[in-house]
C-alpha cells in the first residue's frame, strides 16, 4: 500500500493502519531494532512499541518519508531499551561498538551538556552531514543511525570492509574537528 494511503488510515483512526505498517515495514523496523539489541524478543518488543507510538503520533504528524519516521521511533526505543539493560547485556548487537567508535569524537572534551541542548547538538550534526559527500554521509548513517555491521555496509556499497573502516575513521575525525570548531567540544 502506498505510504500516503497508510498515513491516511492513521488519520482516519482505522486500525488496519497497524497491519499495513507491519506488512510493509515490519522487517525493516525489526532489522533496525536487531542491530541495536541483538535479541529477537527485545527487537519484537521495540517494533510493537513503534506501532503504538506511531498510532499516537499520527495525527498530528504527517511524515513525508514514512519509513524514516517509523525507523526513528524504533531506533530511539531500541537504544533506550539497550541502555536500560546495558549492565547485563553490554557487548550484544552493534550498539556497544558504535558507542566506542563515537567516543573518539567526544573524548577529552568537557561535559558541556548543561550548555549545549540536545536540539542544538542535532543542528550541529545535521550541518556536518550536509557538508559531507553523499557516499560518505550514507556510509556514516548506515553505521551510526542504522547501526549496520561493517560487513553489511561493505556489501551494500560494494566496498571492502577495510575501505568502510577507513572511511568511517576519517568521517569521525572530521566530526570531531567540526564539534571542536563549533565550541561544542
Amino acid at each position, binding site marked *: 500500500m502506498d505510504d500516503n494511503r497508510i498515513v491516511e488510515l492513521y488519520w482516519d483512526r482505522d486500525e488496519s493502519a497497524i497491519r499495513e505498517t507491519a506488512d510493509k515495514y515490519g522487517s525493516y523496523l525489526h532489522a533496525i531494532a536487531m542491530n541495536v539489541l541483538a535479541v529477537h524478543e527485545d527487537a519484537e518488543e521495540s517494533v510493537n512499541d513503534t506501532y503504538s507510538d506511531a498510532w499516537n503520533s499520527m495525527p498530528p504528524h504527517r*511524515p*513525508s*518519508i514514512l*519509513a*524514516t*519516521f517509523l*525507523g*526513528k521511533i524504533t*531506533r*530511539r526505543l531500541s*537504544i533506550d531499551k539497550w*541502555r536500560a539493560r546495558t549492565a547485563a547485556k553490554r557487548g550484544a548487537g552493534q550498539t556497544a561498538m*558504535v*558507542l*566506542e567508535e*563515537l*567516543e573518539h*569524537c*567526544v573524548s577529552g*572534551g568537557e*561535559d*558541556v*551538556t548543561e550548555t*549545549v541542548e*540536545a536540539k542544538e*547538538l*542535532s543542528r*550541529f*550534526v*545535521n550541518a556536518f*552531514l550536509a557538508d559531507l*559527500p*553523499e*557516499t560518505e*554521509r*550514507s*556510509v556514516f*548513517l*548506515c553505521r*551510526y*543511525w*542504522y547501526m549496520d555491521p561493517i560487513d553489511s555496509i561493505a556489501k*551494500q*556499497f*560494494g*566496498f*571492502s570492509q*577495510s*575501505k568502510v*573502516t*577507513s572511511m568511517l*575513521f*576519517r568521517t569521525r*575525525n*572530521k566530526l570531531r574537528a567540526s*564539534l571542536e570548531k563549533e565550541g*561544542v*567540544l
Partner: protein
Amino acid sequence: MRANDLLDAIGNAKDEYVHAAKHNKKKRIPGWVKGLSAAACLVLVVGAGLFALAMIGGRAGGGGNSGSGLTYMSYDGPVLPLTLSEENSGITARRDIDFDFSPYLPREEFYEDSKGEMKPYIQYDDEAIVTDSYTLTNNSGEDISATAIYPFVGTLREKEYYPTVSVDGIKVDPELNYGQYSGGFTGVWGAPDNDHAVSLNLAPCDSFDSYERLLGSGEYIASAFDEPPILDQPVTVYKMSDYEYTSDPEAANPTLNMEFCIDPDETTVLTYGITGGTYNSEDGYCARQSGAIEYRPNASPERREPGNAYVIFVGEDIDSYTIQGYKDGGCDEGEELDDLGCTVTRRETTLGDILRELVFEEWDLDDRNDAQTLLELTSELIVTSGPLGDLVQRYDDGMLDTMIAEASSHSRVIYLEFDIVIPAGSSVKIDAVTVKEASIDFVGKDTERNGYDMATQLGSNIIFTEQRASVSEYGEIEIIRQNFGFDLSAGITEVSLDLNEPHYWMEVRKIKTD
C-alpha cells in the same frame, strides 16, 4: 558531551539523509576516471608492446575556474600556497614568490667516452628555483603558536625536488604528510569503443583545473593527515625460494608454474616476484609463473640469484596446488623440466605483515624511513584503487610489485608540517625554496614551451594582504606567454598579483644562440 548524546543527535538526522543512506548503493566503477580527452594521455597499446604518444598542444578547454585552459603532457603542478592547520584570524600574510631561472645558464659538464677519456659537453636544466616567502604577522594581542603546512606536488622517490623550509632564516625539519595519488586512471588510446580497458593507464593531473578539483573541497588535505589503513585481513602466503636450477641447455627461460583453483568470490590472489599467469578464468582455474629461474654468474652479486616469489591468498586458502618447471614462460605441454624446483613455505599471517616484509626485506630500498612511508602509501593504494578498494584494471593482476613501485612514483600533494610561534604584534618569515621542473609537452607543436605556474589561494586558509611575484636570472630565457604581467625588455620583473585571480602562469623558452 558523551557518546550517547552524539548517538541521540545522529538519530535526529534529516529524513532525506537517512532515507538516501539505504537507497544509495554505490556502483563499483573501475577507479577514479577523470574524464580526460583521449589526446591527453601517455598510453600503452595492449598486446603490441609499443608506446604511442598522443599529440597535444596548449589548446584551451578542459573547463575549470582558472580560465587558462593550459594542459601539459607532463605537468609539474602549480606552486601551492602556505596554509595553517587551523584557520586563525589573528594572522595575516604577505607573500613574495620569485622564479629564478639560473638553471638555464649553460654549464660545462664532462662524460667518459668509450675510450675512458673525459669529454666536455654543455648542459642546462629546464628548471626554475622558486623561493616562496611568507611574512606572517600576528595582529592579535597575544603570542600565537600555530602549525604551518607547506604543500607541494611531488613523488615519494624524487626527494631532490622537495622544498627546503626555513623560519626566520633557520632551516626547519618538517614532518611529511603524503596525500593520495593525485591522478586517476583511463583507458587505452585508440582502442575500440567496446574495449573494456577503461582503467588500464595512469591519468595524472595535467592542468591547474585538475588541482582545483582535487584540493578545492578540503577532503584531500584531510586524508593526507589520516592514519594509514591497517591491513589486518588474514592471508595465506606461499613463498617460493631456495631454487634448484635446471641443467637443460635448451631451457631459454626456465619457469616455475604454480597451478591452483579458487572461488573468486571468496579469494583474492596477490603476488610478488611473479612474472605472469592465468587470471580470472570462469572455472576458477589460476596459474602464476615465476620466470628466469637461473643462476646468473655475470650479474652483480645481489642479482645473481632470482628473488623469492610469493603467492598470497586473501580470504579462503586453496585446497591444493601443483608446481611444475618448464623450459620457458609458455609452459607448454612437452616442455616440462623435471630438474627445476624450489622450496615452498606456507604460512598464515595478515596482509599488513606480509606487505611489511615485502617492502622492508624484498624491495630495493635503503632508507628505512622511506620504507615505512612506502609501506603506508602502498597500503593506501591497495584499499583505494587496488584489490581491496575500487579495483582498477591496472592493478587487477594483483601484482604487489607494481603497486609498490607506483606508490613510490605516483605524483601526489605532499604537506610539510612545522610549528611556528609569532609573538604578539610581531612577524615571522617563512621561506620555502624548491627546484621546480618545467611543465612540458613531449611531442607536438609546442615542445619548446616550458610552463611554470602558481596558485594564489588554492587550499590555503591564510588571510593574505598582498602577493607579489618576480623573476630573476632570466638572461637565458624569453617569456612566450603569461598572465603575470612581466615585461623583461622593459625591466618589469616584479609585479603585484590580484588575489581574486586563482592561477598565475607563464611559459618560457631558452633563447637560442647560434
